[in-house]
């Protein structure tokens, strides 16, 4: 039995500790945000935040996540609510500014990679309030184990959505 904290909730998992976190999240905990893209940490479709850092859940074992805080796409609204002192009940009604920006910019095409893109954007914007285009490109290409890949070619829309989210988040923190 391994204990992990997923989206703020303590979860007990039966799976063997060498099971990649991705399969635990998807199959044992019924979370559908992270996707299987390669199993090789080469694409970013499976990304989650582990103690606030973007990791590839396809090569992160359950054992190595024990006792740590995992945030998936599903947990972004609650994460934002907690960071901004909003009531837990409000978290259910809001979106993380990154998600809102992704919708406003109509960013996804097929959308399969966008889980990882939004996770990466969240990690970036928690670190850098107003990233330049160069900093955004750096985050999505060289900051992790591999570039975050989008086959549909939505990179331009992703950059615009990150900028929109950054503006929304800065506004909030000034308020």
């Amino acid at each position, binding site marked *: 039995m391994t204990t992990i904290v997923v989206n703020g909730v303590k979860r007990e998992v039966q799976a063997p500790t060498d099971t990649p976190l991705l399969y635990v999240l*998807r199959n044992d905990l019924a979370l*559908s945000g992270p996707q299987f893209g390669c199993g090789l940490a080469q694409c970013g479709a499976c990304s989650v935040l582990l103690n606030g850092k973007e990791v590839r859940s396809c090569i992160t074992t359950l054992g190595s996540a024990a006792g740590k805080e995992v945030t998936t796409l599903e947990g972004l609204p609650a994460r934002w609510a907690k960071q901004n002192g909003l009531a837990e009940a409000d978290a259910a009604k809001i979106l993380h500014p990154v998600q809102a920006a992704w919708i406003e910019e*109509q960013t996804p*095409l097929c959308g399969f990679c966008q889980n990882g893109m939004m996770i990466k954007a969240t990690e970036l914007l928690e670190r850098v309030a107003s990233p330049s285009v160069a900093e955004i490109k750096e985050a999505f290409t060289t900051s992790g184990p591999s570039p*975050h890949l989008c086959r549909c070619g*939505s990179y331009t829309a992703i950059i615009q959505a990150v900028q929109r989210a950054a503006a929304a988040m800065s506004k909030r923190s000034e308020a």
Partner: protein
Amino acid sequence: MSNSTDVFGAALSRRGFVKAGGVLLAGFGLARAEGQQQAGRVDALNPALPESWIEIHDDNTILIRTGKSDFGQSTIFTAYRQIVAEELSAPFEAITTVVSGDTDRTPDGGGTFDLLGGGMPNVRKAAAYVHQALLDLASQRLGVPKEQLSVKDGVVSGGGKSLSFGDLVKNQKLSLTIPVKGDVNSMFGLTVNGNPPLKPVSQYTIIGKSFPNSAIVSKVTAKETWVTDVRLPGMMHARMVHPRTLGSKLVSVGALDKARFPNAQVIVKGNLVGVVAPTEWEAIQAAQQVASGTKWTEWKGLPGNQRLFQLLKEDADWKTAPAASSKTNKGDVAAAIANSAKKLSATYQLPFLKHAPIGPTMAVGDVRPDGTVYVYTHTQNPQALRSGIAQMLTTSVDRVVVRTFAGPGHYGRSNGGNAGAEDEAVILSQAVGKPVRVQWTRQDDFAWSTQSSAAFSEVEIGVDAKGSLSAYEINHYMPAMQDDRLVGAILAGLPTIPAPNEKGSLFGVANSMQDPWVYDATPAVLERAYGTGQVGQNSSPLNVGLRDHSMRTPGQYQQNFPRELAITEAAVLAGVDPLAFRIQHAREKRLIGVLESARENSGWATRSQRPSGSDAVSRGQGVSVMFRSGTYWACVAHIAVNMTSGAIKVEKITVAVDPGIVVNPAQLKRQVEGGAMMGVSMALLEELRFDESGVTASDWRSYPIATMADVPEIKVVLINQPEVGTYGQGSEAANALAAPAIAGALFDATGKIARRLPLKADYVKTLLKA
């Protein structure tokens, strides 16, 4: 109401009255489905399920159904809603539900391509019939002649009275039977027949607006049910152990270590080997363990990358399949070239490409005890897949249901039915008597999926003394492009459709002219397309070589790159600016329009107007055009070439697109941006690596695609032309435009002509040294 009212060839009838609710269903009748030989063929498993295109409900909501699926185009959630709302004169928001893809819940089949149907998708005509039926109902209810009625926002008015669409159907069960033709299980599905009156374009209020894509909210908030999320009671996980080569037969299966994997089991059927277990992790590990001990025969029947074009040029049979000639061929090309002041003779080569979806293909198969079969997948053509699965199991098509879900886009791979894993999931489910989820690995997806055909073209051009094209000849050579066989069925020795062969006219080895000629001022033109079998197939004991499949702008990409780069070369030969040269040879105003727009919006400048580059970096510009599915495209690429390494950086892509009527500007813009980006990736990076035995690309390192670091400035200019009267389509064309524009820009920047793709740094470096 009488038993049946004729509505421009459709039949409106009242099936009864109901106390609560009320609905108008617009579907097709079997008796009216021309070409339906077997009456049972269009029945879903449960014939009571609705198969209508459009439902008008008494609460003024509207439901639409389409056999097509969303692959990221958003069309069925945006353009289809807009088109139906427009034809009905109902609010966009009234269309609350879009049902798509599922074979038991949608009426028309067909593939997810040609989404706007040359301006006349099924939903448009169906909506036009429904609009007329609603007018007939209102005329009877209001006692006002039909021609004196007006409709706005879902309300019919006339004679000082008005009724909403919901009022018109309240307490009734109405059905409108729409005439159709075709075969629902074929590649193209059913098509709505007849000519109901259409709303004049001048009265459009909904088409042309940027409505958001409703599917995006669920995907961004993790509420979407992706195909990857399908979980059935008792479902098992599986991984395949595919043959070592594309021609390997099974010698012996590795023993399963039951101590380590107590719940796993190995399924073997012919050359098909799969490992099934209750948990995904056990299936993965057990499959790896079994694979390591499994023995296969060796096979070497492919040329490898090095010898590919030598084989295609010297050994392939281009004579058996009939050559296709363009309808626009004219003049005596040979004589005109002989008399030309300047001549160009060149060969152009394009590599095999992978569709390369971000998620490897997966599917869930469920062969139930009663023999019915359910397949859960992400496919562009569920009805064609249904028919393929029925054929494989030697059962009737009405025993098979295909349900579709959102998934990773794969750009044409499944437009003939299967993406790869569906048939394997069904075979394994039948073997274990439980639902089975087959997830291909990244390596499976590179090695065992189809690819976009490699091709080469030979060009002869004559330029006259005045600097105009005097003659143009091109001969295109491409192996068969549409292998829709079920690969699991092939491995298991089960029935599937024949391999592409000389007799298959549409999907066989014959090639066709896909890239319409657009330089109408050219006096002599000869374009031909030659086809042949798939590379390696005949010598493979599995009858599997490099299986090909249409991928974005299929065939046309392979023909447009050589044409457009050759036209740029001809312009330089003629001493004319390549963009001006294109305008000089165009007669079609819309083509000239996109070229002028691309010129203005890209900052196109002739050589003499630009500063010369440094020794280290040289900059250039190139242009390309395409006419596809009613839409004119022009693209300008601005690039920087590192003169030492040969690396190309695409700095700006400008795309001007005239589709006639722009249905949804914001969605079209995003589609074009994405296509242009994928086009840059194809032009600069992509080439499938293979050796004598099979595909050697196995991951994103061995098949690199563009990353965010490669993003150029992308400028999309939409040219709305209501006077064209209808909407063109084919935003995939954006993919194809980049390569010839970038190669043209390389020529401009360096004076070097790169006639084969991709334009990798090493290749460009070699050209620069030459």
